[in-house]
């Protein structure tokens, strides 16, 4: 009798998994069709206005000697009036030449580049660094670039233009990879980003759903974030945290597909593993924090809430799938796996596997097609292996977030390794 009840529970879980996968499949088909065939919602980059806000550009850094020079040089080439902009690189207790590089830039451009040096007495990590920089930032608009990003000449102006819409609380640009051609991993990450930004983010923006602020190549209203108490230092994904904190209060996140900014992707699987585990841990912490406020908020419509919830659950789904594999194995050895289970489960799971946990193959294909990149897309079948990789590490991140929730322990930020060559790091003092 107990065995029978156990088998029934296992089968009910399978039905639940089929339901979850069907919902996500439909969601991504809608996104793909919308991005490919419907009218596109444009960002505000074409607005010309002489009344420009004062902008503070924050660049959090920890041991960034390989990248600091380039990001600062690129920002100094910006077409935004220098008397309306300040750059605040936040040196978070670096032990390499980061401090030296920042000080050298600061001496060359004292009115624009105002570095903040944090020592070991401060709490480490990107979030505390941002909070400290927010206290001294003078701009009404704050833009954030990670140190490995290469903002182009018009980037600051175009991002700032988004805030001309008084309902926009945050803006986000498109992330591109500068080291795509390095190896298989970077090529795969490029495809993942293409599906995520060119299709997913733009479709969500088109449909009036929740576009996501990604913590870099983006910005927010300083007073707004300060009124929310700054960034929550207990959460690793400060970007997703801010997104949901804003939308449940009726603010919009504007997505700028035209504002492409290049970043450096991990070149080793171990580095990627740490990065995705951190994302999963942070994203799931946001899930625990905002699921009920999202459901209860009066500022969002039903479809926005539904898609917001699906977005929150994104990093939980691979864990659900991992349990489903164990479930199906148990059913197999208990002799309880009938034909209907097999066929339905495996067809749906098969389709889902090629999601690579973020985008299904047709969504990535649509992004690549719109970008007119050609050869890299042939790597799509490798997403089968990427899915297994992501499932493993995202599940680990989910378990970590559960432990965080239960124990209330402090979270530590682990910086993503950089690969830029030394030739690109010479200090430019001009």
């Amino acid at each position, binding site marked *: 009798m107990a065995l029978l009840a156990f088998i029934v529970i296992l089968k009910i879980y399978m039905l639940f998994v089929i339901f979850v996968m069907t919902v996500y499949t439909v969601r991504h088909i809608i996104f793909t069709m919308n991005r490919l065939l419907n009218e596109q919602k444009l960002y505000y980059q074409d607005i010309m206005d002489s009344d420009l806000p004062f902008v503070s550009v924050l660049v959090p850094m920890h041991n960034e000697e390989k990248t600091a020079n380039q990001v600062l040089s690129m920002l100094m080439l910006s077409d935004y009036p220098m008397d309306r902009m300040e750059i605040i690189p936040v040196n978070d207790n670096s032990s390499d030449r980061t401090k030296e590089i920042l000080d050298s830039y600061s001496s060359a451009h004292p009115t624009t580049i105002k570095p903040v040096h944090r020592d070991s007495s401060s709490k480490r990590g990107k979030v505390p660094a941002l909070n400290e920089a927010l206290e001294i930032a003078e701009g009404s608009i704050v833009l954030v670039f990670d140190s490995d990003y290469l903002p182009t000449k018009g980037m600051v102006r175009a991002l700032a233009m988004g805030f001309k819409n008084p309902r926009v609380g945050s803006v986000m640009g498109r992330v591109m990879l500068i080291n795509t051609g390095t190896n298989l991993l970077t090529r795969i990450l490029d495809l993942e980003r293409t599906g995520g930004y060119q299709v997913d983010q733009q479709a969500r923006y088109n449909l009036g759903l929740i576009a996501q602020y990604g913590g870099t190549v983006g910005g927010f209203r300083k007073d707004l974030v300060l009124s929310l108490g700054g960034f929550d230092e207990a959460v690793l994904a400060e970007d997703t945290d801010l997104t949901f904190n804003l939308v449940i209060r009726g603010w919009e996140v504007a997505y700028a597909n035209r504002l492409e900014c290049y970043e450096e992707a991990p070149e080793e699987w171990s580095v990627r593993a740490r990065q995705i585990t951190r994302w999963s841990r942070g994203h799931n912490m946001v899930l625990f924090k905002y699921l009920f406020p999202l459901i209860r908020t009066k500022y969002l419509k039903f479809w926005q809430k539904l898609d917001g919830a699906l977005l929150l659950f994104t990093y939980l789904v691979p864990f659900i799938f991992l349990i489903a594999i164990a479930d199906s194995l148990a059913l197999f050895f208990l002799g309880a796996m009938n034909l209907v289970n097999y066929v339905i489960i495996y067809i749906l799971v098969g389709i889902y596997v090629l999601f690579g946990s973020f985008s299904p193959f047709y969504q990535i294909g649509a992004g690549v097609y719109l970008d007119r990149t050609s050869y890299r897309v042939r790597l*799509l079948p490798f997403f*089968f292996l990427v899915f297994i990789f992501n499932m493993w590490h995202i599940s680990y991140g989910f378990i970590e977030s559960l432990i965080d929730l239960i124990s209330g322990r402090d979270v530590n930020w682990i910086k993503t390794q950089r690969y830029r060559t030394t030739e690109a790091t010479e200090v430019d003092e001009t």
Partner: protein
Amino acid sequence: MIKESIYYHRSYRKESISRNSALIELVVLLLPVVAVFFMYPYITYYMGKITRFVLYRYFSAASTVQVIKSHFVFFDLYIVHMAAFYHTPMFYFVFFIVSFALLIMSLIIILNKASPIMLYVFYILSINAISATFFALVPLDFPYDINLFSDLYIKTEVAIWLVIPFVLAIALVPLRSNLFLKLLVTIATLLYSIAFSLVRYILFLYVLERFSYVFMASLFFAFGPLIDFIYIVGIYSYYLSAVSRKNINSDGKGQWLF
């Protein structure tokens, strides 16, 4: 040099396809479903015949390899029916030891370097280890035989053939490309799927007959239907690559206003 024209940026590109032509394309691309639906009894019959012919060469008890009917949703299909055997307890014990040794080795490797391929190997070895434990403890309680596996495999593959045109239609209809080529891609994928199903069918039955049921779980879970979606996406990605290249300069350009 003054720039006189500029190519439209990729950010807000979209395809222009009317509802009617999308519907027509959808109907045409789903025609192979009808073909598979009416032809699967014949396809499975010939798959069974070929499998029997190949396996006949390898097993002394080949006279027991038969092609029999099995009930499916609308029409009966054909499966290979044959006898398999259980190994000695010593074989299962040794297999159990080897499986766990390999599993522990792979675990040590992935704790240091969790590459996707190593994680997939770990996944296969985990299934193998669970199966080895089952067969070491209660081999005679294994709830399936080779014929049930044969039945399940063929029915799953037929279901996948029926699904392939749907999956590809969703992905192919919005692309700006010749409908005939899209149909060709769908048919080529189906033909590849049928051929690949046959090869795996022969291989799976050979492994089960030669090495016993202990490998059944890993064959189905690691190399079964999940693998089918890899080549579906593989063929799609090559086609997409070509279409993307062809359309690279077809988006027009604008003129500067000066």
